[in-house]
């Protein structure tokens, strides 16, 4: 219980740190929100009045504390460019992005875990060497390039799938319109499989050398039982941790895939906000990304601790 409490406390401190860093950074970059909101043509007097009215002329630290209190009330600020609450904007887009990312992640894990274990069991054989070589190649390929090649092959040369993702506003579109979501999903899955499979391979290799595997085999357990009942359970824990650690990467992958396939989710919202210099949205989404990472790591640690009783958190 102690460890859990300590771990949660540390996470809270990190969260506070993230909010401070992101806030200060954006404050440094966009020192006059009035100018950003009213545009280059607005008079200096109007800009000053705007900044005064919304409290942007106060010392930065006071603004930060104010922002924190506002966050605690669940208020993420207001986008002056779109004249809309940031919270509303994010909520409109979040379900679509979440479904896309989750589906991509699940698809990747379903492929990567068996592949990694197969590679470990067949270590040094053809299948292992081929998979490792392909991983090296794909690992060196930026995700947008994977997407472009997929579009080139499966949309231009062989017109199987559309080059643009579905524009539907339903978060379930991943399942209801699989044809238009196939290429984004495959892109996400490929980029993730490359990382997860190699990790799963080394985790499984490490476990295969351990005594309990030899004992299980000596007892006469079939290879299938050894792999599914004994190995899988122990070799899968590093992957859980990895998913937690990789959340920033998953979010970045989501951003790029949404950009390439023009899928209206959080990533595209972020990019459009960049072009609009809509700093409240950028601030909120970056904060949420940081929070997701911290929470993801915490949850991953807890899950691993539950799965493996030998681990005590915080030690």
């Amino acid at each position: 219980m102690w460890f859990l409490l300590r771990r949660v406390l540390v996470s809270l401190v990190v969260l506070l740190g993230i909010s401070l860093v992101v806030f200060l950074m954006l404050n440094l970059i966009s020192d006059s929100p009035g100018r950003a909101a009213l545009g280059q043509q607005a008079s200096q007097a109007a800009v000053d009045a705007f900044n005064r009215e919304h409290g942007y002329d106060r010392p930065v630290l006071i603004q930060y504390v104010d922002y924190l209190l506002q966050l605690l009330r669940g208020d993420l600020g207001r986008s002056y460019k779109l004249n809309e609450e940031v919270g509303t904007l994010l909520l409109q887009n979040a379900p679509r992005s979440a479904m896309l990312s989750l589906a991509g992640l699940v698809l990747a894990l379903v492929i990567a875990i068996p592949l990694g274990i197969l590679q470990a069991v067949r270590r040094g054989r053809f299948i292992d060497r081929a998979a490792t070589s392909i991983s090296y190649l794909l690992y060196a390929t930026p995700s947008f390039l994977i997407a472009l090649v997929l579009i080139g092959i499966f949309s231009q040369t062989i017109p199987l799938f559309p080059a643009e993702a579905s524009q539907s506003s339903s978060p379930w579109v991943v399942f209801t319109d699989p044809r238009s979501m196939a290429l984004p999903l495959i892109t996400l899955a490929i980029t993730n499989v490359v990382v997860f499979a190699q990790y799963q391979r080394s985790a499984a290799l490490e476990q295969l050398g351990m005594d309990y595997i030899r004992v299980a085999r000596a007892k006469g357990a079939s290879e299938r039982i050894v792999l599914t009942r004994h190995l899988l359970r122990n070799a899968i824990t590093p992957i859980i941790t990895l998913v937690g650690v990789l959340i920033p990467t998953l979010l970045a992958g989501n951003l790029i895939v949404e950009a390439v396939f023009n899928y209206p989710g959080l990533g595209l919202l972020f990019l459009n906000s960049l072009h609009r210099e809509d700093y409240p949205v950028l601030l909120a989404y970056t904060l949420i990304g940081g929070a997701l990472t911290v929470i993801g790591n915490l949850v991953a640690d807890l899950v691993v601790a539950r799965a493996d009783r030998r681990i005590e958190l915080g030690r």
Partner: protein
Amino acid sequence: MSTARAEVAAEELPSLATRNPISRSAVLRSLWRSRTGRTGAVLLVVLVLFCYLGPLIHPTNQTDVDLLNAALPPGDGFPLGTDSNGFDVLGRLMQGGQVSLQIGLLAAVFATTLGTIYGAVAGLVGGVVDGIMMRVVDVLLSIPFLFFVLIIAARFTATPLTLSLVIGGFSWLVAARLIRGEVLSLRVREFVSAARLMGASNRRLIFSHLIPNTFGVIIVNLTFQVADSIIVLAALGYLGFGLSYPVTDWGSQLSSGVSFLAADYWWLIYPVGGFIVLTVLALNLLGDALRDAIEHRSP
């Protein structure tokens, strides 16, 4: 994006007790003996020669727009065709390659230097200072790297120097963690105690004793970091926050080629994409082989 890649790629080396001091020739020999190391090194040398010596063999005009010869497929006089501004694609690959390699290297040097000093200070000083310094790293590692880089890159006019600083400025975290780990195990060794007894200051300990002994980790990290920086740079260019005319890099080139994807101008996409992949592949192969060479150093 890149931080996590580096984190996965750069596993920690085994404890120092099992390693001998670095002998450069031994590392180079074992590097050359491994197939991945040889492939990576040869590939990298070829790519660098292509970018820097290529223009001497295949000189092209990369400053004046030539709309009469725009978007030509590969053919006479233009081995890889021309882009929408009439620039020779082969020549543009060389020029963009120079810029991409330079930014990748500069960003990596910057990130590794910053990370090394930060990690060494945290590891040597220890205690509360170490605790605070490493929590700062935790905080920065939790913020999605690409978001930060995009926000900053979008705000400032991109030049090779600013892009290197922005990419490097957010990529030093993994290096800091690795070097701190190394320093933690080095600082209790006799030669460090001896230096301390002789009155060496912390600064002298760090720069004359600790950092030189972590050189293996540093060089491995640097290699992977160049690869990661080139990928991030390409992503920035692709998303439209790369360099602008007349300077170009591989990502920006790819980005302008993508508008013609539907027109099937394949020569604007696949060659430059291939060069990005080959460069990153070469660096990753080299990094892996270097790590192995330093781990199991042959006598």
